[in-house]
């Protein structure tokens, strides 16, 4: 008992937010390092417009990565985030353009479809005991095909829905503070991240998300209906993918049914670069955001430097390894 007061002990919540930030300071440092490096290498890099371009480029992948974070903390994996995003975008297109419904209904449809599909994956995993990799791989293929089927393999344009492109491209902040023309897409990313962080840190659902990843059997034997909570996590992640679908559709002012494959690996990479362990039980949304930013800065910077495409790939691979290595070194020291 006397020991109890020797160290100030962070709670789960403060671990997520305060010390989370504290802990990530060095992952953050490698982000800063990249930013500084590119600024020196190219005078064009560090402009407001380019910084906003980078944030904008983070928005879709960032939202997907937040969804993936939730699932990965439970010890699962979600390969369907990319095609689910597309599927939700297509659904929004059908509802808004083909059926001519009002905008809020389209938004609801996209997010609802996402949650429903997530619930499906969750059911496969929790009830049918299919390994998450397979269940979400199957969903990835099913959704990819269905997007093509219901759209008739054609993009659906949102020209008849005025304001739809403002979801991602408009700037509420810019309207208030003209010097800070941060697009709504980025705002939405931060809102989604904050909400996810809150859910993870403060709610029962969040606590079970961590507990499931830590020791599912122990949670079950504590009398918790683990199946239900797991399904809830996948549904929540699916709903977030629905938001990503709205973001990408709004940016392209169209639902492109063939898009989305390959986005899952990028999202998972952002999560893991952000320090979340693939074996579950630990992770932070803030880390994921930084991970997604590292990827976006890297891609943008190399392009601004006009590095040849093939070398861009090589350098990206090497820097991802180095960034995570630096993080490992730091953790070892701490």
């Amino acid at each position, binding site marked *: 008992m006397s020991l109890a007061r020797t160290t100030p002990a962070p709670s789960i919540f403060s671990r997520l937010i305060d010390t989370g930030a504290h802990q990530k300071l060095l992952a953050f440092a490698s982000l800063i390092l990249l930013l500084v490096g590119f600024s020196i290498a190219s005078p064009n890099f560090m402009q407001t417009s*380019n910084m906003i371009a980078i944030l904008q480029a983070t928005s879709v992948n960032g939202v997907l990565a937040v969804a993936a974070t939730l699932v990965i903390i439970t010890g699962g994996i979600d390969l369907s985030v990319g095609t689910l995003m597309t599927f939700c975008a297509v659904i929004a297109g059908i509802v808004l353009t083909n059926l001519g419904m009002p905008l809020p209904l389209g938004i609801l449809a996209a997010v609802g479809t996402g949650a429903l599909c997530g619930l499906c994956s969750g059911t496969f995993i929790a009830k049918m005991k299919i390994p998450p990799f397979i269940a979400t791989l199957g969903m990835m293929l099913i959704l990819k095909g269905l997007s093509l089927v219901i759209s008739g393999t054609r993009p659906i344009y949102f020209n008849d829905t005025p304001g739809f492109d403002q979801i991602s491209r408009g700037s509420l902040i810019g309207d208030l503070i003209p010097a800070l023309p941060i697009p709504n897409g980025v705002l939405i990313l931060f809102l989604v991240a904050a909400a996810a962080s809150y859910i993870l840190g403060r709610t029962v659902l969040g606590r079970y998300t961590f507990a499931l990843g830590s020791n599912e059997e122990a949670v079950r034997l504590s009398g918790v209906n683990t199946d239900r909570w797991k399904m809830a996590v996948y549904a929540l992640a699916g709903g977030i993918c629905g938001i990503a679908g709205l973001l990408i559709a709004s940016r392209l002012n169209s639902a492109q049914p063939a*898009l989305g494959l390959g986005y899952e690996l990028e999202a998972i990479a952002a999560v893991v670069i952000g320090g979340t362990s693939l074996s579950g039980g630990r992770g932070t949304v803030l880390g994921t955001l930084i991970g997604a930013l590292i990827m976006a800065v890297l891609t943008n910077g190399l392009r*601004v430097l006009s590095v040849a495409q093939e070398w861009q790939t090589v350098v990206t691979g090497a820097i991802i390894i180095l960034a995570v290595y630096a993080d490992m070194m730091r953790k070892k020291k701490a």
Partner: protein
Amino acid sequence: ADTYVPLISKGFQHQFWQAVKAGADQAAADLGVTITFEGPDNETMVDRQIDMLSAALAKKPTAIGFAALDSQAAIPLLKQAKEAGIPVIAFDSGVDSDIPLATASTDNAAAAALAADKMAELIGGAGKVAVVAHDQTSRTGIDRRDGFLNQIQAKYPNIEVVTVQYGGGDHLKSTEVTKAILTANPDLKGIFGTNEGSAIGVVNGVSEMGTKDLVIIGYDSGKAQKDAIRSGLMAGAITQNPVGIGYETVKAAVEAAQGKQVPSHIDTGFYYYDNSNIDDPKIAAVLYD
């Protein structure tokens, strides 16, 4: 038995390939034959295309339409088709072999050279331009990129192509690529996007960055590209005749199967279109939404 012609294409989901499919479907309806249309997810999957070709051969087709991702890789299967007496018609790009009886395609290099000429004309023969290409290794990607670059180099010494970057034909990636190019080159005069996804990405990137007075030349059509040309965001674009390619391929395949003589090369042509001629019936006929 029924006349059955499978078409093995280079892609499936892109609107260009869907337009080829539409043409093929039209021909099938006109000629009363059955077709199927398949292609791999992206233009790097050479071996997957080979698997598709062998599955098509298993169905004992009357004739085959084939757009080779790599012309050499398919040769053993094409030989197999020849031995089985199944005529092969190449489309989109040729096959380095004498097995295909006919090739229905566009001269991509010449089409891209036309884009270069238009670009030069619109920026006044001098200045920096960039290329957002869809692929670094596929035949169409290489032909369009090099057709454009070679023409600029040969004829317009005052134009500098500052960078060629690749967005994989993905609308969103091409958008980000364009924005990075604009950041690095504030004095850019024009960008050439080498397929539909790239061209739309360029338009998106330019409008998101708020850049004015930039000459954008695109490739292929599609609703968004047509809208951009009508609104003046895009100066103009090259269009092939994908519907024609699909139609001619099926037609040639059916004729070859009936033992008729088919022309060895069917050039389906290409056009430059802009705000002035976009509604011209001749142009409108080869555009797709």
